[in-house]
């Protein structure tokens, strides 16, 4: 049965109540891997960061990275979790070529952190998200599929394995079912992942770059007739590689499930795969049998029993909670509630902060990041922080405006240049010749020319209709290819015509 038309999103959420579950994997930025001393650097030549342990050679044994455990505890604390007094690693057994031991060293029924919560703001509403657990595990190697279309696994002839990433520490954060989001479910999910990213960055435990895989999200959703009913069957969607995808994938899944249910069908409890290009999810390979992971406590590692002293010492290292930080910044910057909310929603707060630190006025920083740059990011389909322009560079552009060397229009061209990798703002100004002309002689000549070419307008101004100066300003600006300070031009015109 092929579904050709999906129920609209509005109808879907009118008819059903979505319940979400989000699993986020955070790749830690430790120097070495979770169980061995190999480097975790991204982008190295294949199989150059491996050893007997992370290759799973016969006889090799793991030893836990203290900083990995420390980061796990800090993440748990930042999510208001209880930290286990005693817990163990466990083996999750299954076969896959990217897993050298054919078991993943993880945690099962004894996670290091559990029963926490966090809050996210969406359009002025605060949602409290309960955290089930955060636990430690290791990443797998990477496979390259050869011979199929677009390097995908489907239709590949064979695969090539690089184990550089195998053993890199991961923290998996699992929410409890998220209820009561209604139509805002996709936005809440996106806000949650954005919030986690912000938290991890503030803690300094991860690079949290979704496009590099250091932050990954699996989105679960099910529908039920109303909030009093039992949970429906849920699907898990993988390959959600950006904040945008989180929202889009959930929106799609909700529509797809609603369509199925409205036609009297049942949702299949399964794993699905999100396709950013086509905007749909497709079913994963149906397995003949459900995977049985045969978890048991990892005998090669000893229990992790963080002392309460250590936990409290780590608690003292936690950064300010994001909501508190946002309030403080809002006050310091003098933003309105709406301005602050928009900045937060755009992921611009840390960028504004850095821009202010580089010398710009808060409102100027805000205008650039939530205005022109947000527009550009949206058009290019990337996150704000992924734009190839730094806060320092934005501050530099604003500096140039404040110094009278650029006007707004020219500044936008400079930003274009920076985003196009032409160099720093100063370099772009120079190579593109974008500087405002402040030489009165040149300006004066242009003004005189404009006056001479438009005698009627000139007469009006002489007669006192200073508003008519606008037309002449336009002529001069055109003549100067926009590289003039409009205010100075106006002054010169009025001066010349004796109307100042």
């Amino acid at each position, binding site marked *: 049965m092929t579904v050709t038309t999906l129920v609209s999103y509005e109808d879907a959420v009118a008819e059903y109540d979505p319940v979400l579950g989000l699993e986020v994997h955070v790749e830690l930025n430790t120097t070495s891997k979770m169980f061995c001393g190999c480097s975790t650097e991204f982008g190295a030549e294949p199989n150059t960061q491996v050893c007997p342990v992370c290759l799973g050679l016969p006889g090799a044994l793991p030893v836990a990275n203290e900083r990995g455990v420390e980061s796990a505890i800090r993440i748990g604390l930042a999510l208001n979790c209880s930290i286990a007094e005693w817990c163990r690693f466990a083996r999750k057994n299954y076969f896959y070529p990217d897993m050298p*031991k054919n078991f993943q060293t993880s945690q099962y029924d004894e996670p290091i952190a559990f029963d926490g919560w966090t809050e996210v703001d969406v359009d002025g509403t605060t949602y409290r998200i309960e955290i089930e657990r955060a636990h430690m595990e290791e990443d797998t190697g990477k496979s390259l599929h050869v011979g199929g279309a677009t390097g995908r696994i489907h239709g590949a002839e064979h695969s090539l394995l690089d184990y550089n990433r195998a053993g890199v520490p991961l923290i998996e954060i699992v929410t409890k079912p998220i209820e009561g989001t209604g139509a805002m479910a996709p936005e809440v999910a996106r806000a949650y992942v954005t919030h986690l990213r912000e938290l991890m960055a503030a803690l300094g435990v991860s690079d949290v770059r979704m496009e590099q895989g250091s932050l990954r999200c699996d989105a679960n959703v099910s529908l039920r007739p109303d909030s009093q009913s039992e949970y429906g069957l849920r699907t898990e969607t993988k390959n959600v590689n950006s904040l945008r995808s989180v929202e889009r994938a959930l929106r799609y899944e909700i529509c797809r499930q609603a369509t199925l249910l409205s036609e009297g069908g049942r949702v299949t409890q399964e794993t699905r795969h999100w396709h950013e290009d086509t905007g749909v999810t497709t079913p994963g390979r149906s397995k003949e049998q459900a995977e049985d992971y045969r978890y048991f406590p990892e005998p090669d590692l000893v229990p992790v029993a963080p002392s309460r002293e250590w936990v409290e010492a780590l608690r003292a290292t936690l950064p300010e909670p994001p909501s508190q930080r946002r309030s403080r910044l809002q006050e310091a910057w003098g933003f309105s509630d709406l301005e602050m909310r928009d900045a937060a929603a755009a992921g611009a707060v840390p960028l504004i902060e850095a821009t202010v630190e580089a010398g710009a006025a808060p409102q100027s920083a805000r205008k650039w990041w939530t205005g022109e740059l947000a527009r550009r990011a949206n058009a290019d389909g990337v996150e704000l922080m992924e734009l190839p322009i730094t806060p320092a560079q934005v501050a530099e552009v604003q500096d140039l405006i404040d110094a009278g060397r650029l006007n707004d229009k020219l500044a936008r061209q400079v930003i274009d240049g920076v985003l196009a990798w032409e160099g720093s703002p100063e370099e772009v100004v120079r190579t593109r010749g974008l500087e405002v002309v402040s030489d009165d002689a040149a300006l004066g000549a242009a003004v005189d020319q404009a006056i001479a070419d438009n005698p009627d307008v000139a007469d009006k101004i002489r007669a006192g209709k200073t508003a008519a100066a606008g037309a002449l300003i336009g002529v001069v600006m055109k003549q100067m290819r926009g590289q003039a300070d409009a205010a100075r031009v106006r002054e010169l015109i009025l001066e010349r015509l004796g109307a100042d």
Partner: protein
Amino acid sequence: MADLIKRTAAELADLLAAGEVSSVEVTQAHLDRIAAVDGAVHAFLEVDVEGALRTAADVDARRAAGDTLPPLAGVPIAVKDVFVTKGIVTTCGSKILEGWVPPYDSTVVHRLRAAGLPILGKTNMDEFAMGSSTEHSAYGPTHNPWDLDRIPGGSGGGSSAAVAAYEAPLAVGTDTGGSIRQPGAVTGTVGVKPTYGGVSRYGMIALASSLDQAGPVTRTVLDAALLHETIAGHDPRDSTSIDAPVPPVVEAVRNADLSGLRVGVVRELGGEGYQPGVEARFDDALKLITSAGAEIVEVSCPHFTYGLATYYLILPGEASSNLARFDAMRYGLRIFPDGVAEPTAEQVMSATREAGFGQEVKRRIILGTYALSSGYWDAYYGSAQKVRTLIRRDFDTAFEQVDVLVSPTAPTTAFPIGAKIDDPLAMYLNDIATIPASLAGMPGLSLPSGLADEDGLPAGIQVLAPAMADDRLYRVAAALEAILVEQWGGPLLAQAPELEVAR
């Protein structure tokens, strides 16, 4: 000297230190012996002539230069093929690792090299250490030097046979449920399983991670103590290794004394299922112990009767997981399934494991997979872990009343090759006395107790001590050994038939 091979390691060490013989001579003598008898014994899977002689020459040079050398420097040793050896083929007795050359050394081997012991080669074993007869080796069984038609015990039959056949004065093995001790008993040699965590497991191909332990295989208790001190000690690469000084086992041997000791006899480790001749030698040993001034106390460890069942749930569970890495993707055998045009990785994995693993390994992997399965976990693996606690408690209670425990090491003497191969359960019973200490992580030592009357084959007596009290084992064993050797007029091995030397 023709009788160099009959010397103990301690004696060889003395001769070497005194400059009366060179390591090259000693090593060559053993290599010659291997060439002469190993065709019949088949203790070795790999002999590293060049490497051994190179180490020997190097040690000789350092000695000549006046360097201070570790106690066993220059004394050659055989290494069970379960230890990863850089540059030397390591198979773990399996076809799935045929020809595999590891790129790294296990910590045990690293320490042997650092201590200057020439490594003669790798010894035969039951595949992946699963067995008690070495018949499950993919490369053919090892033959007991006492009677070549009989098993040498297992899984470390190769190490014990090598030592018993004078092919090496020392060997290092591993013991998971008795794989050092039981071969020791049936070959008339000494075998020790240290306290769990006492010797590093890094580079020891894992069978059951929470049970495996490396230990000495020798002809005398003193030799075992010397080797023990060479290989034991904390290793930061092994999270389960004990971070404490090695118990002073050599000193314990030199101060061997039984007087005033309370020696416990475990009621459950004897009686039905134990060969009368084995029990007779055990009873004789008890009399000697008493006459040496110790007190015999009968103790009961009721949960020991569940030892076998517990072991055969925990071991297969852990082993099934440890052996999952052998999947044809990164090293080892790769077999393609018959008649499949474009096999998947999964198909190649399954075909390889089918071809590369022997019957016993497959049996235990399936058993282990079952024991860990959801739905069965609580009844099997989960329950076994609880019984393990009960067994540990039995030990703790016993050690409140006595200083050491003793039992026959194995229920029978060496049985004929092929006698039990088709009866897995019968084979598992070989470890019935050695398993409890493995489950509890306690140290155990087996030394020869004499020859059984029925068949004139060696039997062993096992000494067990509390965790970390390995020195106590050696103290008791050395004292008993001295009395027994005096009674026999020489080591028990001297009564073994001379092996035919190949021309």
